């Protein structure tokens, strides 16, 4: 077994390009897409704001918004940033009005206007309610707070569920992108490692080993262990790069997350064995793995949060998908701060998948003499 592992490691050292390609692609995709800030989050798009006298209150309201990051500048800086293209849109806040300055046409301008408008409208409404209460001889403060209370109660309840069944869900764009792409590209690395079993069987290397004193179980374990290590190493590198280079702390739970992702890598190894057992040759495997991996990533929420998916069929398919559980572990620990015990459910499901797929895969492989 040691000999087989060593041979695989030596081959890897001679030809690490596939591994490097997939690792590099995960890092580049996660970094570029996070930088584009698709879908918001992560501090929001920076918007320069010039605040005129008497409009300070509006600025503090705006700073509480999550979708955009409003930052104060003087008027000259605001104009210069727009002129130089450093910002698409800027805002001038006055006492009773606001101006939106658009440097470059973008869909964000409308959203910024809506956000600022909401702050002003709320303020005007509260002022009007206070004035009306005064005129009616009532306590203005009481009337305004009664109005706010009514608003916070809402007309109807909105319930949103996350994987753990909570009433609301949180989202960290950076964590999701890194996790999604790391889990997605790890499938390719692991699968191309496992398919070497098929290649070596076709080449006759396995027959040579079968005739030697090495046991068949050792041959499977060595090959699968190597594929696991390669895939897991890739995930480890990707997380470390973002931890040390981009300062993404994963809620100070990176080591815990990486440990809890071991069943994910094992489940992918097992899934790859199953696919290898079902195809007839490497060409079929390559075609199958491309289709399956992209489908798994889309259905499992690697590219977008599953919480925005409402189709019951897609949600059901997600439950059969190892990527979903891998992401549950990452998001659970990094965003919700869950412990190992609280994440036992996705960990157990991934372990079950690993055992089940390995059993079926090896059985089929032996039965079909692949």
């Amino acid at each position: 077994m040691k000999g087989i592992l060593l041979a695989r490691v030596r081959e890897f050292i001679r030809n690490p390009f596939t591994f490097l390609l997939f690792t590099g692609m995960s890092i580049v995709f996660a970094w570029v897409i996070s930088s584009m800030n698709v879908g918001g989050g992560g501090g929001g798009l920076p918007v320069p704001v010039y605040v005129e006298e008497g409009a300070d209150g509006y600025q503090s309201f705006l700073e509480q918004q999550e979708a955009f990051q409003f930052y104060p500048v003087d008027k000259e800086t605001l104009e210069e940033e727009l002129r130089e293209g450093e910002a698409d849109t800027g805002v001038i806040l006055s006492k009773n009005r606001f101006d939106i300055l658009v440097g470059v046409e973008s869909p964000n301008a409308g959203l910024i206007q809506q956000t600022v408008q909401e702050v002003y409208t709320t303020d005007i409404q509260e002022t009007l309610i206070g004035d009306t209460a005064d005129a009616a001889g009532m306590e203005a403060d009481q009337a305004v707070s009664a109005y706010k209370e009514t608003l916070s109660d809402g007309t109807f309840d909105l319930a949103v569920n996350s994987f753990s069944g909570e009433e609301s869900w949180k989202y960290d764009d950076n964590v999701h992108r890194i996790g999604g792409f790391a889990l997605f590209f790890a499938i390719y690395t692991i699968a191309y490692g496992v398919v070497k079993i098929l290649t070596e069987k076709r080449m006759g290397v396995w027959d040579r080993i079968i005739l030697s004193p090495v046991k068949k179980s050792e041959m499977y374990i060595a090959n699968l262990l190597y594929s696991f290590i390669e895939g897991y190493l890739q995930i480890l590198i990707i997380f470390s790069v973002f931890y040390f280079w981009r300062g993404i702390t994963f809620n100070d739970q990176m080591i815990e997350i990486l440990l809890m992702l071991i069943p994910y890598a094992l489940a992918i190894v097992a899934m790859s064995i199953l696919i290898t057992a079902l195809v007839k040759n490497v060409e079929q495997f390559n075609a199958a793995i491309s289709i399956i991996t992209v489908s798994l990533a889309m259905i499992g929420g690697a590219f977008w949060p599953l919480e925005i998916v409402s189709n019951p069929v897609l949600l059901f398919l997600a439950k059969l998908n190892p990527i979903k559980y891998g992401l549950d572990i990452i998001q659970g620990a990094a965003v919700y701060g869950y412990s190992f015990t609280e994440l036992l459910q996705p960990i157990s499901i991934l372990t079950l998948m690993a055992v089940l797929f390995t059993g079926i895969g090896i059985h089929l492989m032996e039965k079909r003499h692949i």
Partner: protein
Amino acid sequence: MLELVDISKRFKKIEAVKSLNMFIEQGEIVGLLGPNGAGKSTAISILSTLIEPTQGDVRFLKESVIQKPAPLRKAIGVVPQEIALYPQLSAEENLLFFGRIYRLKGSKLKQRVNEILELIGLTEKRKALVDSFSGGMKRRLNIGVAMLHNPQILIMDEPTVGIDPQSRSYILETVKRLNKEHQMTVVYTSHYMEEVDYLCDRIYIMDQGNLIASGTKEEIKQILSSENTISIQADRWNSMFIAQLKGHESITKVHVEEDEITLITPKEVNLFSEIISMTEEYGIALRSLHVKSPTLEDVFLHLTGRALRD
């Protein structure tokens, strides 16, 4: 020493080997000859315990090895038809790897690797990656790997496919030397009649899963002792001429190639003058016409009506 007893192997609807009986004695070179698809590789896989027969038994030193293959596996070295090597490793690394899986260690392993490299003539290329080797060098290393654990029996499945004449000759000489100097028993499959004719003491000829002839080279060629093999050589053929040969009552087999027609006729019939007048009649420029000593190829043609490489 090693026997196949009434072996049959069926893959779904295809019966690859049908009731094959074969024995191999210590120190001999046994050839398994037949065209592609004859069932040679299946027979070799059964013989080396890689696949189980649908019916029949494999015996090594009179003991069945189908359920307990370990004693036979220890005694054989198999050279597969494919290049079963790691292309990203060097020749030496491949030998070290396969040596280790045969539990060879330390100085014994290194010494054996050096001996094999010497034997297959790759000592100077020991550090080169297999990926950079020519077809012939890969084939030589493929043989070397099978001999690492010093097997009693070397089973070679078409070891010279797709290589240059120089490498082929090197391989044939190496096999001959191993047999003479080390008394190694060799089972050699090929569809090249000349190789089997040159190397083997006894021959089994297979076609479409059946064993169609077996014995020493002389015994097999005796099959044609009552017949003549006539070779006609010319630059071009005429279809009417070929049709007339095929329809001739005294000609039992006709095999047409680009510049040669081989005929099998009864020994007592002399067709020379008739063939010469036929070539004149159809305007064929005859280059030669002679009776050949029968070859294994002719025997195969006689038995199946087809050439080995059809």
